[in-house]
């Protein structure tokens, strides 16, 4: 993770569900002021959730402060949909930085299948993006807004990169034919 990268900061601020294993009175501001007890479920930003799940409080019990659950964006339902047809899933509705979230969760959980599903859908969708970036007029007219609207931020950057490349070439062609 790059320190100065706004993308990784935004990725880390996405929410992940956490279940507290212990009562933590000092953290009540997180729960809108009401006390956090054992078993309280909260959606916490990824960076904080990770700290709480990894850190072990001093004391007799060896349990960690909170346990981290898989966010619903990466749940079985979404994975099944991605497996069925990667191009029809509105990834953005799941999470704005979907692949970033997946990447962070895969650091914490060992999910061989999820790596495969994410890799495959990223690739399938990237090929589609390359095609769409070629004729942007179609996209602007709203011919395929479903797919384009469902891209997550990383995929949007990919779209922009593909589009910038071909438009820079086109621009050079135009400029050099004029002068």
């Amino acid at each position, binding site marked *: 993770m790059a320190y100065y990268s706004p993308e990784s900061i935004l990725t880390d601020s996405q929410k992940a569900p956490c279940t507290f294993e212990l009562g933590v009175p000092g953290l009540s501001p997180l729960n809108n002021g009401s006390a956090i007890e054992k078993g309280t479920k909260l959606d916490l930003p990824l960076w904080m959730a990770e700290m709480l799940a990894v850190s072990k409080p001093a004391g007799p019990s060896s349990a960690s402060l909170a346990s981290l659950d898989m966010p619903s964006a990466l749940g079985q339902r979404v994975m099944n949909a991605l497996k069925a047809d990667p191009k029809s899933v509105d990834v953005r509705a799941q999470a704005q930085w979907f692949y970033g979230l997946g990447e962070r969760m895969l650091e914490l959980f060992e999910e*061989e299948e999820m790596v495969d599903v994410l890799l495959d859908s990223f690739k399938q969708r990237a090929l589609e993006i390359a095609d769409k970036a070629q004729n942007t007029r179609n996209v602007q007219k709203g011919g395929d807004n479903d797919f384009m609207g469902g891209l997550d931020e990383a995929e949007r950057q990919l779209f922009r990169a593909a589009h910038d490349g071909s438009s820079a070439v086109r621009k050079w062609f135009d400029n*050099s034919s004029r002068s």
Partner: protein
Amino acid sequence: MAHPLPPGLVPSEVAFLAEMEHVTVIPRQRLAGLELLGGTTPALNPPFPVPLPLWLALLLKRQKRANISPPPWLSVDGLSHILDFETDERTADLFSPSPELSDPTSTAPLDGDAYLAHEALELSPPFLKDAATARAQPDALPYHWLELGHLLLTHAADDFEDPDTVRRLLRDLREVRMSKLRKGFRVLGPGAGVKMNGVGGMEVAEVRGFVGGVVDGMRKINKSREESRREQEAEDRENGLESSSYREDEDDDMLS
């Protein structure tokens, strides 16, 4: 941190470099050699053809002081031959090869230094000599084929025998090769690249952002697997194979 420019050369920079390529010029007026940073240009003595950098050739052409003789590959015959190769079923997966590497010559400016001796210099596509002069290979596309073809066709169209057909062939060629390149994207993976032998500079500049983004994105998703594989390998090296299964169990406990 955000960089103002994407990594690598952008298309306009590639095109700028393409103007350093030498083309054959048939002068109409006398001109003594010019002292340039890259060396002295040969004196122009009509009607003897000389090689000149493309930018100078275009300048002289615009002033009607010279004609450019297009390279042999930029002709109807040459281009249709290359197009046949590109569209042939047997070679459908390949890009037409770049020109053959020339034998080292003995005109090295820095003779005497073993490292800079011409036998030790191996020239590869962007630096090949005579890629666009009248002595170029007729059946191979040089590295800057797209830029050269476009510049010559726009600014020196009257030096071609049949500029419209050449223009059409060039456009066909570009489209065929671009669709091949896109087909190549399918093999991209976290650790795989596209084989890009024979792809021109402009084509590379066009797809660089996208290909880099895809490989980078997939590498990120694959990071956890890659790391565990690397750890596994390191442990195998340390402990020998029999203890590796035990260590794996321990890792699982820590993660769940």
